[in-house]
């Protein structure tokens, strides 16, 4: 609330702050902070007593974090994972958007590809991991395939949905001005469906991350997932939490990045449809 000088002076005189009783609901930030600190302290206190094979505690985890980040092997594996992830994700975005646009615009494409898209979408992609590993071996191609399959469906289906929602009036205006198919696509359909595409990208980023982790944990050769399996097999619980925390942070950063992109590229989101 913007208060002018007179109102501020009046408030200062009345001195409302001191007359209100302390209500917890007014200090939510404090509640959050206390909650986090309390849990970490309890974890630290009780974690030290537990057998270190089963549970580690925050200070040990922090120590392992510093140690692993400096040692180089962790960052190497992380970089490997990220490369595969980005490769698979970009392929998924390109194919998903192109196919979504085609399927949305041309009924024939939709009916031809429809059954396969819905069939593959219904199968949990993690169930395809053993087959993909069988076909592509334990290396990068299999993981790229898993990331691709995990990420392509949200993008495809959201793009499809977005293209379908483009109001026919817009396309008709384009036709009335004699625009050819290519121009209609680039200047009308793509910008109008951009909010949906960005929503699909946001979903795909999360699912692709789950895909790469599961694939790496299953193949257990290289990458962050493999480190997870290796540290847990060696019962090095403190080191185990380092990739977990790293992945959580990565997930949050990626989702935030996409949200920012969404806000920048699709500010004309139709929040409500008029008649």
């Amino acid at each position, binding site marked *: 609330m913007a208060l002018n000088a007179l109102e501020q002076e009046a408030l200062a005189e009345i001195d409302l702050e001191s007359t209100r009783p302390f209500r*917890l*609901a007014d200090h*939510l*930030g404090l*509640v*959050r902070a*206390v*909650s*986090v600190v309390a*849990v970490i302290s309890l974890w630290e206190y009780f974690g030290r007593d537990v057998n270190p*094979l*089963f549970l580690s505690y925050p200070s040990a985890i922090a120590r392992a974090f510093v140690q692993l980040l400096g040692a180089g092997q962790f960052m190497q594996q992380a970089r490997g994972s990220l490369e595969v992830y980005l490769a698979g994700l970009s392929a998924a975005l390109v194919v998903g958007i192109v196919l979504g646009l085609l399927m949305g615009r041309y*009924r*024939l494409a939709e*009916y*031809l*590809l*429809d*059954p*396969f898209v*819905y*069939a*593959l979408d*219904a*199968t*949990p*992609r*993690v*169930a*395809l*991991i*053993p*087959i993909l*590993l*069988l*076909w592509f071996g334990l290396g990068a191609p299999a993981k790229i395939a898993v990331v691709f399959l995990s990420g392509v469906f949200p993008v495809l289906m959201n793009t499809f949905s977005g293209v379908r929602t483009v109001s026919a009036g817009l396309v008709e205006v384009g036709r009335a001005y004699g625009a050819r198919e290519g121009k209609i696509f680039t200047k009308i359909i793509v910008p109008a469906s951009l909010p949906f595409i960005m929503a699909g990208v946001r979903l795909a980023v999360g699912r692709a*991350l*789950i895909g790469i*982790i*599961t694939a790496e*944990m*299953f193949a257990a050769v290289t990458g962050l*997932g493999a480190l*997870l*399996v290796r*540290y*847990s*097999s060696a*019962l090095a*619980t403190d080191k*185990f939490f380092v*990739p*977990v*925390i790293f*992945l*959580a*942070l990565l*997930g*949050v950063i990626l989702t935030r990045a996409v949200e920012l992109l969404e806000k920048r590229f699709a500010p004309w989101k139709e929040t*409500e449809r008029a008649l």
Partner: protein
Amino acid sequence: MPAADERIIAELGLRRERARSVCDYPNAIRAFSVICFLIVWEIYGRRVDPLLLTYPTAVVQAAWSLIKSGELPRQMLESLTTLAVAFGASVVLGVGFGLVMGRSRVVSAALEPHINALYATPQVALTPLLMMWFGLGFTVKAVVIFLFAFFPILINTASGVRNVSSSTIEVGRAYMASRRQILLKVVFPAAVPFIMAGIRLAIGRAIVGMVVAELFTAITGLGAMLTLYGNLFETAKMFVIVIVLGILGVVLVRATQTLERRMARWKETERAIE
């Protein structure tokens, strides 16, 4: 165009407004597409090394043999019981906690940081830790499925509770309803559409959780069969399991959607000005 319209147009002798196009028969096109795919797969699949790729007839044979031997029904029952128990627990706890979190800002603020942290971690990554704590049996699978399904339900329930229009609650208060009555008779029914949406999201994730848990613990269940047959290079049987999982996914999500439609009839599709 529907048959009745076609008949009327024929009777009146009107001309068709646009030419007949192949797009008028979507199901025919879909069927054609699937059949072409199956034929190509059959021809190509027979020529490739049988360890890597199978073909549709082999998959059908493998399915038949798995059903006859009782292996498939047994493992399916195993998987489904674990899924049912864990999903039920996650619904009960998720809705319960969600109601409390939605109603009380303090509780919500206290629990939020931890829930967001756990939700942000890919639950897959926690599986080795859970395997260490709970061993390899029913418990670890149930816990994994629970973790996968719990958060969407919790977050959606809390969101639904927060979205209950305050005028509805005020009516309750005006009629001197107690806190418990408001919670059970006003807030909970109003939040049901959101809860059902959360359950719909959660069931898909629960199936993924089930497959993940079984892939890694690899003793019983459909996912375990996947790992086993993968190691044995029995590609046909692997395809059978993948198809079964796909069908399971479709059936469960459709069932939840029908339930959602029935239970959320009073969903507010647009909010009037509060």
